[in-house]
């Protein structure tokens, strides 16, 4: 059997089990309500979930702007300047070891429990990996390309626009992927912790009243969001496939990085 066929078979079986096991009473419905029950619960309150989704998307959008914009910009600057890079990069990756969730209470004290604290937290959450990925990726630009451009008389700004930026595109994309995924996590986690709106909040609220179908409906919605985001990025990456073939090792490096700094929790 082809690997992909078997894979889809496994996925279908898992989905079927989600329906069958709780129905057969092998798993208590409190732990895992059947898929159909979950979907029905979700659609019955589509309005509420839609509202929550809008709140979450708004927070995710703004955070992404800050996290990815700032991360890519700063990463590009630090990555291309050798001295600050040697000085700062190891410090940033040490910082990455810190479970950043502990900062969220600080933000709630400072900014309240509205969208501001979520945006601040998710921005920081997505910022570090994006910056690390971009800085590391800028370094993988083949120095020969820059040398060649220089030998043809390219000025500094021409090198930036015509060589460094295009060569950095794969890196920036993988930074976007990592950072964006983390931003989604950050927003949802902070909504789950302390909040009054958003999908994370809905999940938590339904959890306290032990309404499993509604909890899982929320979980599915977040999953769909993460999957959609991933698919969008992959689509863009495919569009830019030409970039990735040439920049020696850039893709490999980018993969390494995003492998290493995927969404923690």
């Amino acid at each position, binding site marked *: 059997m082809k*690997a*992909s066929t*078997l*894979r889809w078979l*496994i*996925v279908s079986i898992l989905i079927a089990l989600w329906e069958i096991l709780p129905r057969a009473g092998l798993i208590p419905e*409190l*732990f*895992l309500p059947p898929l159909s029950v979950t979907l029905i619960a979700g659609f019955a309150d589509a309005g509420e979930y839609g509202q929550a989704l809008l709140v979450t998307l708004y927070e995710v959008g703004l955070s992404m702007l800050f996290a990815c914009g700032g991360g890519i910009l700063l990463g590009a600057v630090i990555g291309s300047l050798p001295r600050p890079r*040697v*000085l*700062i990069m*190891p*410090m940033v990756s*040490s*910082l*990455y*070891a*810190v*479970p*950043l*969730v*502990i*900062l*969220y*209470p*600080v933000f*709630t*004290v*400072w900014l309240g429990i509205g969208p501001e604290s979520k945006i601040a937290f998710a921005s920081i959450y997505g910022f570090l990996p994006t910056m690390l990925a971009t800085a590391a990726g800028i370094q993988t630009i083949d120095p020969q390309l820059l040398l060649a451009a220089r030998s043809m008389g390219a000025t500094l700004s021409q090198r930036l626009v015509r060589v460094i930026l295009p060569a950095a595109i794969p890196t920036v994309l993988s930074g976007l992927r990592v950072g964006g*995924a983390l931003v*989604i*996590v950050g927003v*949802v*986690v902070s909504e*789950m*912790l*302390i909040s009054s709106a958003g999908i*994370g909040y809905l*999940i*938590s609220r339904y*959890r306290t009243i*032990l309404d*499993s179908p509604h*909890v*899982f409906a*929320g*979980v599915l919605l*977040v*999953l769909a969001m*993460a*999957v959609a985001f*991933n698919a969008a990025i992959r689509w863009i990456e495919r569009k830019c496939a030409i970039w990735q073939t040439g920049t020696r090792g850039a893709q490999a490096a980018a993969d390494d990085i995003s*492998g*290493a700094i*995927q*969404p*923690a*929790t």
Partner: protein
Amino acid sequence: MSDRWTISLGRIAIVLALFALWETLSRFGVVNSRLLPSASDTFGTLADLLQRSSVRSDLAVTATEVLTAFALAVPFGGLIGFLIAENRYFADVVKPLLFFAFSIPKSIFLPMFILVFGVGFSQKVGFGFFSTIFIVIMSTATAVESVRVEYLTVARSYGATRAQTAWRVYLPSMLPVLLEALRISMIFNLTGVILAEMYASRDGIGHQIASWGENFQMKQLLAGVVMVAAIAIAFNEIIRWVETRCSHWRT
């Protein structure tokens, strides 16, 4: 050599400058010192907290949870990762699924752990395990695949047995990658346990931090943040140090 010293000095200077900035911002009232207690106050509080037996027992609880989850996730994930990497077909089938599982936010499953385990030790350890296992599987598989085919061919051509190959080729050439995997797994693990504690728990340092936040106890909150950050960074640096020690393996 002198270069390395300048770099270290530079880093220390940056850290000191940040703390100095923090101190001045708060001390000279640039920001409300109730919202941002000064660095010195925070460190004073930290020393205080470390004396308290309740904080110590919270730390002990968290440490136990973290270590338990880690001790479960690493061998289990390592085994799965090894099996996946060894069998091409199996790898082709499972890897995309794992990538997917890896890329979705784990935190949304936290409520499920509470529904199943209730609030307590097993829920936190369970979630810590769940947040760690995927990265362990992925990085073990990567580590196994990073072993050069040439080494394996050489070993085989000299008639090495399976056990000999595992012990003399796989292990030494994987060691640096494995250490890196352990380091990153620990980051995931710690984050998972602390998040679980913050979300719903009666003890543990994550729970403490969350409740200080809810009660606007800024000094304690910041001291707690500094404490957890220091522990995490220290652990990270230790493994990194060991990694560089072993780095001559990597070519």
